[in-house]
């Protein structure tokens, strides 16, 4: 046992490395495959960038579209999550913990259920159309609510919000109260306190929240499939086709790792932005 003996941390390292390998190795395997080729429906070892070249060539429109959507979702959700987490942390007092529990439960209240909730609300026979019909505003059900990018944004935002709340709340929880008071005492307005003291201290939490939303939204294929309609051709759907219908795991891997690569680039840029805007002066 003897916890908290700092100098012995490395003893646990080999053990954890094994754990991580078992856990990460499958993904690494896929990364290797992405440089292979498929011949006669069999994977052949290779070290070619052809799959990546083809991804960028054939799917650039879809990639751009995917990241427009994913970026929008990530920005909206991170903002909403910050506001919610801020209120829970600094305003809700002892109601904070139960509220967070609700968030945690809702976190996986069911992926599928959430998708169909929005499908039903936005659909032809859904809540909005029924309401509009009863009020006599429209004669026929309006159809443009569903099967478009906006529906995807709403659905995925609803799904990823709890994911984004948790890391931001975690960061906010480790911010102490008293320095906020000190800032007020030194003449800062409420807004300045948030800007000067709170935000710079939870930059990492905000970036994690943003990253989670972005990665999840960019990689998802179920929501566009069920709710996005024919013109919402996000890359997730295409990756799934590649693995499933075409059975080309090499190409599919290359596409998946292209998405991951772009995610990392976007995260890096947004991270730089966050760290510059909320820098300490």
């Amino acid at each position, binding site marked *: 046992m003897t916890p908290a003996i700092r100098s012995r941390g490395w003893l646990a390292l080999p053990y954890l490395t094994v754990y991580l390998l078992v856990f990460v190795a499958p993904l690494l395997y896929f990364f290797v495959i992405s440089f292979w080729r498929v011949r006669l429906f069999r994977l052949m070892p290779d070290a070619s960038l052809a799959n990546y070249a083809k991804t960028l060539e054939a799917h650039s429109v879809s990639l751009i579209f995917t990241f427009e959507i994913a970026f929008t979702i990530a920005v909206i959700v991170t903002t909403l999550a910050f506001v919610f987490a801020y209120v829970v942390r600094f305003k809700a007092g002892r109601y904070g913990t139960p509220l967070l529990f609700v968030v945690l439960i809702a976190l996986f209240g069911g992926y599928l259920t959430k998708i169909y909730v929005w499908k039903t609300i936005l659909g032809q026979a859904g809540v909005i159309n029924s309401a509009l019909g009863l009020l006599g505003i429209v004669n026929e059900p309006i159809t443009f609510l569903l099967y478009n990018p906006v529906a995807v944004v709403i659905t995925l935002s609803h799904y990823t919000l709890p994911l984004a709340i948790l890391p931001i709340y975690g960061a906010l929880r480790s911010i102490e109260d008293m320095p906020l008071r000190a800032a*007020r*005492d*030194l*003449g800062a307005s409420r807004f300045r306190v948030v800007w000067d003291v709170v935000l710079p*201290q939870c930059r990492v939490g905000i970036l994690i929240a943003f990253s989670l939303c972005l990665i999840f939204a960019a990689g998802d294929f179920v929501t566009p499939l069920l709710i996005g309609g024919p013109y919402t051709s996000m890359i997730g759907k295409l990756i799934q086709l590649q693995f499933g219908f075409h059975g080309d795991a090499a190409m599919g891997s290359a596409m998946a790792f292209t998405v991951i690569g772009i995610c990392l680039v976007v995260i890096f840029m947004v991270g730089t932005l966050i760290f510059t805007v909320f820098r*300490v*002066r």
Partner: protein
Amino acid sequence: MGHPLVRLDGVSKAYGKIVAVHPLTLDIFRGDFVAVLGPSGCGKTTLLNMLAGFVLPDSGRIEIDGRDVSHVGPDRRPTNMVFQGYALFPHMTVRQNIAYGLRIRNYPKQEIDERVGEMVDLVHLGGLERRAVTEISGGQQQRVALARALIMRPDVLLLDEPLAALDLKLRNSMQQELRRIHQSIGGTFVFVTHDQNEAMGLANRIAVMRDGLLVQEGSPEEIYSTPRTQFVSNFIGEANVLPGRRTSGVVVLDAGTAFPSKGSDGTVATVVRPEAMSLTKLDGAPIEDGKVVMQGTVRDAVFLGSRMKYVVEVPGNAITVYTPPSGRSDRFAMDNKVDVVWNMVDQRVLDTE
């Protein structure tokens, strides 16, 4: 002294049904170093927060320099605070912490640099300006907190248990430091503390609080030598409180002695400081005039370096006596009978009900 700098006039505050501060009136003059002293839960922190603007009073009026600030927020009051635990901005350097208040007010960079420089000199932080505040020692953090508040040149500097987080050695030297800074800038300081040593060592005026009430207020000497209640005598310094009863001008103590004392008949408490008592063996020798003697048994004897501490059991009580240190030979041994002697001028008889 003239007009007070700070006037608290009938100020009170309750949280729900719990009254933190009963209507309280207190004047603080320019240049004062005031200690608000009391046990935890006595309302002293609420009082400080009302001065700072973090808590708005339910009733009464707070005036600073003639201006009513009762309902002005903390960001627009001419007060600044040194928080308990310092409340430094952990993501900023020493310099950024100290400069923060001036940056908020959009002072030109050159003036900020100048005033930060002055402050760094005043609190002896030279060379640490670029260090993160998380990397410096507790004593240095304390100085940063002080500089960050003083740079605003507040009418009143408020300090919340300023020395509580420091260890003994540091506390002594910081105490001297605070006195020096107070003298050199000539400001008005108000601090709260539960530690009477801190209050005595720093303040020129002490306000003792208990259960939301201001019990006594005056110079350290006044409060130490003429405590108004048993509570004050126990809280400021150590005190032996001996219960007794006065009948026709004579007080008979339960501990088994008597002395003349003017006043109405009834129960009394006689307060004697441990250092005003001495131990001796009279062996039947006569008592000097103006002295009181009481018999007891030594129950504990501790050598404390600069003095000896004895615990002496007397009928119905255990009293503490401090004597100058002495060689092993002339000490009083455990469980021996001794006579406890003090001068009547060093005691204080309080009527109790």
